[in-house]
């Protein structure tokens, strides 16, 4: 399951990031890395972009990028 499939207001844990190295590094400097818990807090009208919240910040991602982030739902 990847982040692009997650419904609004759902909390998930990141399992693995399969993005190309440079994007992976960027995600990490924004605080997105394996093991982190994130919540999908907004999805734009045509499902183009999504807003996730993690810890103390919010990040906007395009669906293409979200597809490279493997997650698991928190029970």
């Amino acid at each position, binding site marked *: 399951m990847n982040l692009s499939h997650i419904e609004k207001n759902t909390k998930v844990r990141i399992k693995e990031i399969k993005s190309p190295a440079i994007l992976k*590094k960027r995600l990490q400097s924004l605080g997105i890395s394996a093991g982190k818990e994130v919540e999908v807090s907004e999805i734009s009208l045509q499902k183009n*972009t999504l807003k996730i919240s993690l810890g103390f910040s919010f990040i906007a991602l395009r669906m293409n*990028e979200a597809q490279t982030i493997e997650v698991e739902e928190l029970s």
Partner: protein
Amino acid sequence: MKKIVIALVGQPNVGKSHLANALSGSNLKIGNFAGVTVEKAIASFSKDDTEIEIIDLPGLYSLEDFSADEKVTKDFLLKGEYDLILNVIDSTNLERNLNLSVELMELDKKMIIALNMDDEAHKEGIEIDATYMRKILSIPCIKVSSKTKYNIDALQESILHVNAHEPVAAKLFYSDIIETELEKITSFLDEKHFKAPNMSNRHIAIGLLWQRKPMYAMMHEQPLFIELQPILNNALGHVYMYAGSEDIEEVINKENAAFVSGLTTDVMSVKAQKSKNLTQAIDKLLIHKLLGIPIFVFLMWGLFQLTFTLGQAPMDWIEGAFQWLGEIVGATIENEAIKSLIVDGIIVGVGSVLMFLPNIMILFLGISLLETTGYMSRVAFLLDGFFHKFGLHGKSFIPLVTGFGCSVPAYMAARTLKNKKDRLLTMFIIGFMSCGARLPVFVLFAGAFFDEDMAGNVLFIIYISGALLGLIAGKILSVTAFKGEDEPFVMEMPKYRFPSPRLIWFSVYSKSIMYLKKAGTFILMASMLIWFISSYPKNSFIEESYAPQIEAALDEEKGALENEMREKMMENTYLGIIGKTIEPIFTPLGFDWKMSVATISGLAAKEVIVSTLGVLYSLGDEVSEDDASLKEIISKSISFPSAIAFIIFVMIYLPCIAATAVFAKEAENYKYTIYLVVFTFATAWIFAFIAYQTLSLFY
């Protein structure tokens, strides 16, 4: 007096500029980095006989080269001359900010960490133990608040203290296996009594293990490298095996992240979270699926309404003041030629540009509010899907909005885009975002041809249709000239914050001063030039040939004949001759030669368009001078279809020479500059042609 240069570094939105402002007691200046045209803000203050200069570097998330603007900061940190790094951290977002700090520590410079926004962290129930943090990292960590000025003194003292003492290497701890390997390399160097200036052996060991090229270059020259090599090989082997990866960058990232995460847990405790909810609540509305975009459009509409309505009264005062000045000054000058130069050339030319200062200030205020409150990234979020369809990127929004102010910083702002293709495409579109300097033309024409209560809407429509045309152009360019891979869209959405009124004022003020300076120098010269070439040669034979006719004419025909004579005289001046030569190009658009000349002179700077029109129409105007404002003269002498065609042409054609030069520099290839010139002129001409021909059917 001693001088200390401080590099102010931090992730975006941590309040760096605000802190620089607080440290220096609002002594900010804008300069440029040597070699590159990126604005750099410098703040300076003196304390204990030492002058301290702070260089406010563009924010960056990490030291990798993700985008061109981050590279500016990185290059400065690696090659620039400075004494110490002041790393600003947002206390409410400690862990993520520390990721950068860890990378900065590796640079081995004197460093201080300022834990900014302490007041906000308090409110959010976040407690950071700065003393413990200092103990772990062995570099000063000081809690400050640029808003409440808390601990600003302590930070100033710490700067002096750190600068006066020997550098203390920052301490990073890695996982046991890495530490063991580092220890092996360090003890080897110690045994050999190896000592590099200003660098600990541990630092060398880390550099070697992390395969940093400069470190290798340095150590390679040492005779002991032969013995060192097998130890290194061995160490790397162990590290790879342990990390399960042969990519050293990945190992470093993991190690740094683990250190940062551990450090955060050690020094930070959280009681309750509040303000995040406020941001979430505002976002529920502002980036709402259905409401988000309408709200944005409404806000933009409001801004242009304000630009017109609020700006109207001061604009009238300024225009009135200049008319009065013209009369007063005119009355004191005997010599006709000098009087004309000063009144019709300088006062009218400069005055017609200065009177738009209130509008410009409102527009810049709006843009800087958009930039500083955190709303900008929301709009990027909302528009990314839409922009993406047109080949643009959500982040393109930022340079595009900056383009409403001025194209020059907008071309530079395009550096936030990583891909060359996205950058170039965005830069091509920036010209469609009508810059502040074109605003006078639109305000003038909207005021002249539409009712007062409609003028604000017209202004809004002009800007929106420019932007829409830009999007269409983007689509066309992205499927023809700029094909290629998409850039990922990953962007922080910072918390909503009340911007510091001081910083907002500073931004509006410095831009207004720039506008005034331009009016006082460049526009002044241009007005004088335009006046000269539109007044000479005098061709007194025309006057002579008309004199008997006017003498003989009936009273009611006199006025018409005099006008005819003035027109003839204007047409035979240097400018008239130039205008007549280029007129055929613009005739299909309904421009007379005066408008054609204004279009060309607008290439120097868009403000020159109104000053040219001002000079040209006031010199040869048909109505008596004292009862007519430029607006009235224009509404009488230009037809409606011509006016619309003129607006459209000005909306699209090439930004000024200065902006084009910056474009050429940023695009790094003259080929693109030629494309830009041809592309903008051709589009402008075609659209103006269509508009004029269509409207002529009805009017």
